[in-house]
């Protein structure tokens, strides 16, 4: 029943990391050779592009693992029985959180040290009325958007999330080791913990979306932005749970996951895709309708300069899952789910790219070797950490009060 992470699988994750790095370097070199004008800004522009690609992929995979932690907490808070068989997968994905947090901190610290300009507002001259770069609109945001307070918030989010993740993971093994007569004890403690986490997550998912993503387009604001970012993370997390389960099932493990479980997780992928579309469109339509210059800049930059990616994410993340995952047979077909899942997963990475790049790169951002290389590298690191975490414990929990219900889960 245990997954052993070695040999080919381990080597493949290293190959992914290496391949990504090589692509990134080739991309950077090709980019340097291609441009001969403006030598002095060249290094800076390449640097900015590499940092942006690292941030896009770093945040995306951080979001995947955070979504898994969120879904784990939802399972407890809702007393959901069916999903217990996926619990170890969720814990495994959540185990990437510390690495994801380190990635974010590295990018943020580089921003604070002015190694890149993804976060335009970190420039202190913007707040100085005597300076040429003084920006009244940004200066007005100083009580909230100053580096000190921002760093305190950032570190607080990350520390709190990692703490919750560690407690959930530790208690999961405690539950395995417990005697069967008080099997509910850990479950009830986890339920309280999950409720507390969900309240904290509910507020902080919105505020970290402002702090980490919305602050890139410093002048712009959207109240539903937090939900939009969160729904993108959630669907990526659900897809990752599905893909890992299908992979482990193909290795002959996790045979306790039956068609009904796969059907239900497929419904989640389908449903959360709609949630994402709803929030995407909800944000877009209100701005489109009112057409106020200060609000429409966000969409103008994306629709004009990133036309294909902007509408492409809509096609890949909405129309594709809607048409392909509608039927019952499609959700129960592992190969088909794997295929569609991989496309949606990449589609949501593209969505994060579309959110970050126009603010960080201006109209020049493209998906080239640098961005793809960065994605592949992070995929390698992510899989290395997650598969390693999965191998450390049995794939099925013991003594969970809903375990039997989950094992006998059957729907039509």
């Amino acid at each position: 029943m245990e997954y052993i992470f070695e040999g080919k699988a381990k080597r493949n994750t290293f190959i992914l990391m290496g391949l990504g790095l090589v692509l990134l370097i080739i991309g950077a070199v090709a980019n340097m050779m291609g441009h001969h004008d403006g030598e002095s800004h060249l290094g800076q522009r390449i640097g900015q592009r590499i940092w942006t690609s690292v941030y896009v992929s770093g945040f995306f995979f951080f979001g995947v693992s955070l979504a898994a932690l969120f879904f784990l907490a939802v399972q407890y808070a809702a007393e959901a029985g069916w999903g217990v068989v996926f619990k170890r997968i969720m814990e495994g994905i959540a185990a990437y959180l510390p690495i994801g947090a380190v990635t974010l901190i590295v990018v943020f610290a580089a921003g604070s040290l002015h190694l890149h300009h993804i976060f335009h507002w970190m420039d202190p001259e913007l707040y100085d009325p005597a300076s040429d770069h003084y920006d009244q609109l940004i200066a007005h945001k100083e009580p909230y958007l100053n580096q000190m307070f921002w760093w305190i918030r950032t570190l607080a989010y990350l520390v709190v999330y990692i703490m919750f993740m560690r407690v959930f993971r530790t208690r999961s093994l405690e539950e395995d080791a417990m005697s069967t007569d008080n099997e509910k004890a850990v479950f009830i403690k986890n339920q309280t913990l999950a409720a507390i986490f969900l309240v904290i997550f509910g507020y902080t998912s919105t505020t970290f979306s402002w702090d980490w993503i919305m602050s890139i387009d410093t002048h712009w604001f959207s109240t539903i932005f937090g939900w939009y970012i969160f729904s993108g993370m959630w669907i990526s997390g659900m897809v990752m749970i599905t893909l890992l389960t299908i992979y482990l099932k193909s290795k002959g493990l996790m045979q306790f996951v039956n068609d009904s479980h796969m059907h239900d997780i497929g419904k989640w992928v389908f449903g959360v895709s709609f949630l994402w579309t709803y929030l995407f469109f909800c944000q877009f339509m209100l701005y489109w309708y009112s057409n106020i210059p200060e609000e429409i800049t966000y969409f103008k930059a994306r629709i004009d300069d990133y036309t294909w990616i902007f509408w492409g994410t809509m096609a890949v993340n909405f129309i594709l899952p809607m048409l392909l995952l509608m039927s019952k047979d499609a959700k129960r077909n592992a190969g088909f789910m794997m295929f569609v899942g991989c496309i949606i997963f990449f589609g949501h990475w593209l969505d994060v790219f579309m959110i970050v790049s126009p603010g960080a790169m201006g109209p020049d951002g493209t998906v080239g070797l640098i961005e793809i290389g960065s994605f592949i590298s992070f995929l390698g690191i992510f899989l290395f950490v997650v598969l390693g975490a999965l191998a450390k414990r049995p794939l099925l929990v013991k003594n969970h009060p809903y375990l039997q219900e989950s094992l006998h889960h059957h729907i039509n």
Partner: protein
Amino acid sequence: MSKAIYALYDDDEIMVDGAKTILSKNVRIKDVYSPFPIHGLEIVLGIKWTRLAINAFLYGITALTLALLGMSYFMIQDWPMNIGGKPSFDLYQNLPAFIPITFEFTVLCAAHGMAITYLIRNWTLPGVKARNPHPRTTDDHFAIEIDLSENQGVSAEDIKTILQETKPVEIFEK
């Protein structure tokens, strides 16, 4: 005129076990009456998967097309409306404004279409005479219906003997 034998049960699990026993004796069950859906029963009875979902999809597609065609006629061709300074010259430019209405109309038609199809297919429209064999199958009892014309090889007496083994509360003919 076909004649049917009914066995009435007071517990759904006894009824499902009874259905399994009856089928194992090569007696065909025409239908089962129950006040609520019973998990796994359709597999025991070998009932084919419903095509209601396909209907729903067709109703939805029809509604989507109708809504878009309708709005492009009302709002763009017949009497161009300028709401909030939005251009109203072609469907593509106005599409975001039409999406919510299109969505609602799609849901409305799919849901009503499904409900009406279901009622017609089961012939349970309002005003239609109830066809359940025993009034208590809408309360707390369950009935298995065996059509004699479907079971030519087995005599009515044999069927009753088989039914008696499955612990029903009552056996009756209609």
